[in-house]
C-alpha cells in the first residue's frame, strides 16, 4: 500500500511538470528579471560569505584562498573593542525603541481626534515630510544646528546664560542626537499603520459611545487603544528583531573622533575595517558581518516563534 502511494505521484509528477511548464512558463518569464536580481545580488554574496573562514587574497579569489577556520571570529571576540561595540549597537537600538516606539501611537490617536478635517489633513501631510529628507541632509542639519560656534542651539544656550556645548564631539550626546533626529524624521511616517487601523474602526462604536455619554477621553481609552493593541504588539515584536541591526549609513555620518566611545557600532566597524581602511581586511570584516547577520536572524526567528505561541501574531 505504501509502495503504491509512493509510486503513483511519481508517475504523474513528470506529466504534471510538463503541464506546469507549458502552463506557467510565461509567469516564470515575468519573474525572471527579479529572480535574476535576487540570485546575483543576494545569493551570490551568501555563497561568497565563505571568505569569513578563509584568508582572502585578491590574486587567488574567493574560492581559491586558504581555509583558516574560525581564526577571524576568534580574533574578533578576543579584541578589546568587541564588547563595547556589541553594547553600543544594542543600547542605541534599545533606547531608540523605548523612546521612539510610543510616539507614533500617540500621534495617531491625537490626529484621529482632530475635528477640523482641513487641519487634520494638513497635519497628516506635514508629519510625513521629514521622512523624505535624506540621511546626509539630516546629518547636515545636525551639524549646522548644533554647531558649537554658529549653531542656533548653542546660541540659545549661551543667550540664556549657559555654556556652549560641542554636541557632535561629546560621546554623551551621540545617542540623544541620533535617536532624537530619528524620531523627528520617522515618528510621523510610522503613524501610517496606526492611522489605517483607526480609520477601519466601525463608526457605530463611536456613535453608541457618544449616546451613552462617553467623553472623547473615554472613547480613546475604551475604543481606540484596544483596537491598536494587536498591531502595536506586532510592531513591537518586529522592532525587537532589529535590536542588534545597525543604521550604518547614519551612524557613519554622525561619527566623529570625539564620540567614538559611543558611536562605534558593529556596522560602522565592518565598513571601516573592510572598505574604508587603507589595508582592507576583507576576511576579518566578513567574519564580523556574518556574526552579526546570524545573530540578527536568530533573534528574528526567536521573537517570531515566541509571538506566535503567545499571541498568534507572527510574520511567517
Amino acid at each position: 500500500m505504501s509502495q503504491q502511494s509512493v509510486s503513483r505521484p511519481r508517475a504523474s509528477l513528470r506529466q504534471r511538470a510538463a503541464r506546469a511548464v507549458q502552463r506557467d512558463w510565461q509567469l516564470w518569464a515575468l519573474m525572471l528579471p527579479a529572480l535574476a536580481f535576487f540570485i546575483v545580488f543576494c545569493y551570490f554574496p551568501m555563497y561568497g560569505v565563505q571568505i569569513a573562514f578563509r584568508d582572502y587574497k585578491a590574486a587567488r579569489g574567493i574560492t581559491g584562498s586558504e581555509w583558516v577556520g574560525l581564526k577571524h571570529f576568534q580574533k574578533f571576540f578576543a579584541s578589546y573593542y568587541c564588547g563595547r561595540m556589541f553594547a553600543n549597537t544594542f543600547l542605541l537600538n534599545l533606547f531608540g525603541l523605548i523612546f521612539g516606539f510610543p510616539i507614533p501611537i500617540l500621534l495617531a490617536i491625537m490626529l484621529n481626534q482632530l475635528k477640523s478635517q482641513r487641519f487634520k489633513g494638513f497635519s497628516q501631510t506635514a508629519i510625513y515630510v521629514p521622512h523624505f529628507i535624506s540621511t546626509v541632509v539630516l546629518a547636515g542639519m545636525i551639524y549646522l544646528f548644533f554647531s558649537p560656534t554658529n549653531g542656533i542651539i548653542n546660541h540659545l544656550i549661551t543667550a540664556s546664560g549657559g555654556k556652549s556645548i560641542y554636541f557632535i564631539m561629546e560621546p554623551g550626546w551621540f545617542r540623544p542626537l541620533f535617536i532624537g533626529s530619528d524620531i523627528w524624521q520617522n515618528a510621523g511616517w510610522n503613524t501610517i499603520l496606526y492611522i489605517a487601523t483607526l480609520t477601519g474602526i466601525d463608526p457605530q462604536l463611536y456613535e453608541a459611545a457618544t449616546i451613552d455619554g462617553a467623553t472623547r477621553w473615554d472613547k480613546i481609552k475604551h475604543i481606540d487603544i484596544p483596537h491598536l493593541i494587536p498591531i502595536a504588539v506586532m510592531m513591537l515584536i518586529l522592532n525587537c528583531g532589529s535590536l542588534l541591526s545597525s543604521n550604518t549609513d547614519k551612524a557613519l555620518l554622525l561619527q566623529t573622533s570625539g564620540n567614538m566611545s559611543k558611536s562605534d557600532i558593529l556596522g560602522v566597524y565592518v565598513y571601516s575595517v573592510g572598505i574604508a581602511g587603507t589595508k582592507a581586511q576583507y576576511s576579518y570584516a566578513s567574519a564580523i558581518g556574518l556574526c552579526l547577520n546570524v545573530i540578527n536572524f536568530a533573534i528574528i526567528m526567536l521573537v517570531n516563534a515566541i509571538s506566535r505561541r503567545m499571541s498568534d501574531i507572527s510574520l511567517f
Partner: protein
Amino acid sequence: MTASAKKNQKRTRIRETGKDRVFNIINGIFWIIVLFIVLYPLWLILIASVSDPDAVLQARVLIWPVDFSLMGYDAVFQYKELWGSYLNSVFYTIVGSALSVVVTLACAYALSRPFAGKKLVSLGITFTMFFSGGLIPIFLNVRDLGLYDTRTIMILMNLVSVWNLMVARTYIQTTIPNELYEAAVMDGSDHFTYFFRCVLPLSGTIIAVLSVYYGVARWNDYFTGLVMLRNRSLYPLQLVLREILTSLTSTGSSDTFFAAYADNLGGLQEALRKAEVAKYCCIVVSTVPAVVLYVFMQKYFVKGVMIGSLKG
C-alpha cells in the same frame, strides 16, 4: 467618506460636554507644538538660505529672512562638482526607478497567480529580507562581476525591494478581481496579454506608490555610492553633499571643497563666508525634488500604502 460625514453630523447633534471642550483645546495645543517641532527646522533652513551669511552666523535668522540675499544660491551655482553629481543622481533615480517599478510589477503579478513552485520562490525571496551575505561579500561580488565603479551598479544595486514587492503583490491580489482573469482567459488571453492589457492599466495607484518609494530611496541613498564608486565624476548628489555638510567626518574638510571655487567667488575669505549660507542652499536644492514628488503624489500613495500594509 460617508462614514466620516455621518460621524460629523452626529457630533454636531449631540452637544459637546465641558470635558470634551477641554480635551479639544489640549489636542489643539498638542498639534501646534508637534507641527512647530516638525516644520520649524525646515523653515529655518529655508529662511537661512536666503539670508545674509553674517546674520546666519550670528543666529539672527529666526523667524524671517534677515538682509535678504541670494548670494548663497549664487555660490551654489558655481559648484560645478555639485551639479555634475546632481545630473548623475537624476539619471540614477529616473532610470533606476523606472526599471525597479517594471521588474517589481512583473514579478508581483506572477506571485499573485498560482503556479508550481510558488512556495519555494516566495520563501527564497523573503529569506533575503532577513539574511544577507553582508557588506564585504556583496562588495567583492560586485567587484568580481566587473561592476565596481560603474554607472550600471548604481542602477542594479537595490533594484528590487522585497517589501515593495510584497506591497505590489497584495495590491494586485486585492484590487483586481479574479473574475477579470477568468474572463480574459475565456477570451483566449495568456499571462503576457493579461498582464500588459489588464493588470498594468489597473495598477495606476501602485505604480505611483512604487515610483515614489523607489525614487526617493534612490535619490537619498549615499551608501551605495560610497561603497561602490571611486571615480568622483560618477558620484551621486548625496555623496558630494556629505562632503559639504558633514565636514568633520573622515574624508577631508568641506573647506577644501569650497576653497576650490574661491576664484569665482571673490577670494578665499569671501568663498568661505558664503559657504555658510551655501550649505543651507545645498539642503534646499537637494531636498526639494523628493519633497515635491511626495506632496504631489501623496493623495495616491497614502491610500496605496494602506492597502498594501493592512492586508499584507
